């Protein structure tokens, strides 16, 4: 973010040096706006997809009538904005017997985690006026993947706090379930991500994408870590669904069992923050999957020009825009996959979930790590150097 932003402002104003805090503020604003708008879109999409799977229309009535007449996919566009307004205007209730400090802290914490996790996510790259491509991210951290995993633990903390502070048995059970579930699934998830880390020789998400673009054994598409680390991709996706508490792993808020789990006592904006964070996390998971396993913003053999000449107008930063388009297209493909899973599977039972995680996913991720190490060694010996 920082270099791109500075460069952009310099270009625009003719050499103005931005203060050091400006990129931070701008990226914060962008991420916040993205979370809100994207969550709204995802909720709408989820309803439509769910409707399609269940052979119905989904929301059709809110918004201009003409849109609804045009197609099923254009009807009900205003449903989620309306819902958001409703949530904003609802009465904020803090029940008398709750632990106020924890009760108020929890939604903030969970949202903080959802916000912070966006920092190392690379969405595109540009080589504008540079020889080497610059990764577009808030900050392409050296330890990107580790950072992401570390930040997610904060979510457990928040959910545990919410469950405990609500002073409600269902909430507490939900919080406990969430704690156990996220903690246990973090381990196979980390091991599943280790395969790509070994293959790329880096923890930076930007590096991971660039290495995938370079390809494995000199073959471009083979470089998508989905191929060499297929087991890891599967394990990661399952763990990621579990970490975001989405069905079929939504034990912490299982409606049929625990009413609404840890968020039972929450209303209005506080509830909206949990909800928003959940959808944001879902998308983050898909973005990570895209960056780590699906080659991020790149397509094999496709290097977009840094600017596109449209004849009458030269579009600058074309590679940046094309990369973003590719990246989000891939991420949304993963989102669709998750939605498909969500609306067709029954919910697991907590003890089965634990068995599945510890006795199946963890060994599987070890196998994946082994495969990746062997492949990385082959690459190093026969094709020269670290894949990265």
């Amino acid at each position, binding site marked *: 973010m920082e270099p791109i932003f500075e460069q952009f402002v310099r270009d625009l104003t003719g050499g103005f040096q931005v203060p050091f805090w400006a990129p931070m503020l701008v990226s914060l604003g962008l991420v916040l706006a993205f979370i809100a708008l994207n969550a709204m879109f995802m909720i709408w999409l989820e309803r439509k997809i769910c409707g399609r799977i*269940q052979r119905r229309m989904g929301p059709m009535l809110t918004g201009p009538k003409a849109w609804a007449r045009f197609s099923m996919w254009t009807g009900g566009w205003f449903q989620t904005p309306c819902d958001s307004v409703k949530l904003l205007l609802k009465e904020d209730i803090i029940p008398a017997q709750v632990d106020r400090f924890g009760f108020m802290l929890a939604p903030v914490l969970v949202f903080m985690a959802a916000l912070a996790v966006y920092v190392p996510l690379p969405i595109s790259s540009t080589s504008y006026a540079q020889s080497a491509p610059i990764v577009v991210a808030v900050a392409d951290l050296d330890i990107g993947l580790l950072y992401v995993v570390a930040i997610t633990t904060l979510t457990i903390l928040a959910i545990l706090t919410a469950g405990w502070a609500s002073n409600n*048995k269902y909430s507490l059970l939900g919080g406990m379930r969430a704690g156990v579930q996220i903690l246990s699934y973090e381990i196979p998830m980390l091991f599943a991500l280790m395969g790509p880390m070994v293959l790329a020789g880096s923890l930076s998400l930007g590096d991971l994408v660039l290495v995938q673009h370079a390809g494995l054994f000199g073959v471009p598409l083979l470089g998508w870590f989905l191929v060499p680390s297929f087991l890891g991709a599967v394990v990661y996706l399952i763990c990621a669904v579990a970490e975001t508490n989405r069905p*079929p792993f939504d034990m912490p808020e299982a*409606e049929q*069992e625990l009413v609404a789990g840890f968020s039972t006592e929450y209303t209005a904006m506080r509830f909206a923050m949990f909800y928003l964070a959940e959808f944001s996390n879902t998308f983050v998971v898909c973005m990570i999957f895209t960056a780590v396993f699906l080659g991020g913003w790149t397509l094999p053999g496709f290097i977009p020009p840094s600017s596109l000449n449209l004849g009458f107008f030269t579009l600058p930063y074309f590679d940046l825009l094309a990369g973003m388009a590719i990246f989000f297209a891939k991420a949304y493909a993963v989102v669709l996959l998750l939605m498909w899973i969500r609306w067709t599977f*029954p*919910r697991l039972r907590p*003890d089965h979930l634990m068995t599945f995680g510890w006795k199946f996913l963890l060994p599987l991720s070890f196998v994946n790590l082994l495969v990746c190490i062997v492949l990385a060694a082959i690459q190093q010996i026969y094709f020269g150097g670290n894949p990265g």
Partner: protein
Amino acid sequence: MMRQFPANPDLTVEEFELNMGPQHPSTHGVLRLVLTMDGERVVRCKPVVGYLHRSIEKMAENRTYTQVIPVTDRLDYCTSMTSNYVYVMAVEDLADITVPPRAEYIRVIMSELNRIASHLLWYGTFALEVGATTPFIYGFRDREKVLDLFESTCGARLLYNYLRIGGVSRDLPEDFCERMLAFLDEWEPLIREYEDLLDENPIFYNRTKKVGFLSAEKALAYGVSGPNLRASGMARDVRREHPYAVYPELEFDVPVRTEGDVFARYRIRMEELRQSARILRQCAEKLPGGPYLEPQPLRMVLPEGETYVHLESPRGDIGCYLVSQGTDKPYRCKFRTPSFCHIAVFQHLVRDCLIPDIMAICASFDVVLPETDR
């Protein structure tokens, strides 16, 4: 309450009470389960009912025989037809009224259609309780088509008030049989679709197999009946044991399974859907002409006496114990309802289960609270 681990006497755990219901998303109405929990494991369970008690039996004592029929609708809103049926059957038995054959066939058609509607509703909610959302919509979508048939017959979609003492309130619409057969042709392949949504899924297997095991002995002692009893290995069906109406003339199988778990109860109901369709096809073929009602006086007076009749409702063995003292009103009208017995079984079944199992078990018994509380 403190409990000690036998293996390690130094370790004690504290049990806590969890009030599940009467307002809870999956207690199917207003059932309350007072659970004593050890973490997520149930130590004891006490079902509390009565939140929907509308004193139907008391109301019946203050109404004429005909006026009671709409009250029986409210016994079980999922299968009003069979609740109507058991009551009018009791009255007809006491008054010694012979029902015209066409009316008998119409009644059987209606109760089988209602069985389909009720099982579809059950399928949807049961799947919802184990966490699958989509089957719910599928079940409800096709239930609507059955309700359309009911609506064209008696004008109501939920509380029909269709049966009368001596017959039914009005004849079937002219094209009813064609529409019913068209529905069956379209719908029967869909049963396979319902099963596909759940059957092949390992998550569903793990959630339902070997969960909530009910032995045949316990089932009998608790008075369990209907599909739930048949899932425990007892081939008992009132339609077979004490055939009423035209059931002796119809061919159908009574599905039985021996596992006695949630999965068996699910499979039994899926099979029953097929059998109901089979019965309906035969009825459409054999439906005779003639009158649909043996008219009775509006304020009929029954001779002194008492009777107990029962029949097979989608939930099980529903009965009516009717006492007449020679007046125009029932002296005592007791409904023996299957859900009443099924809820009592929970306290036995959910012991040592996890919370998600409670949901699966409760849902698998297909209890309807208004029927329990009456």
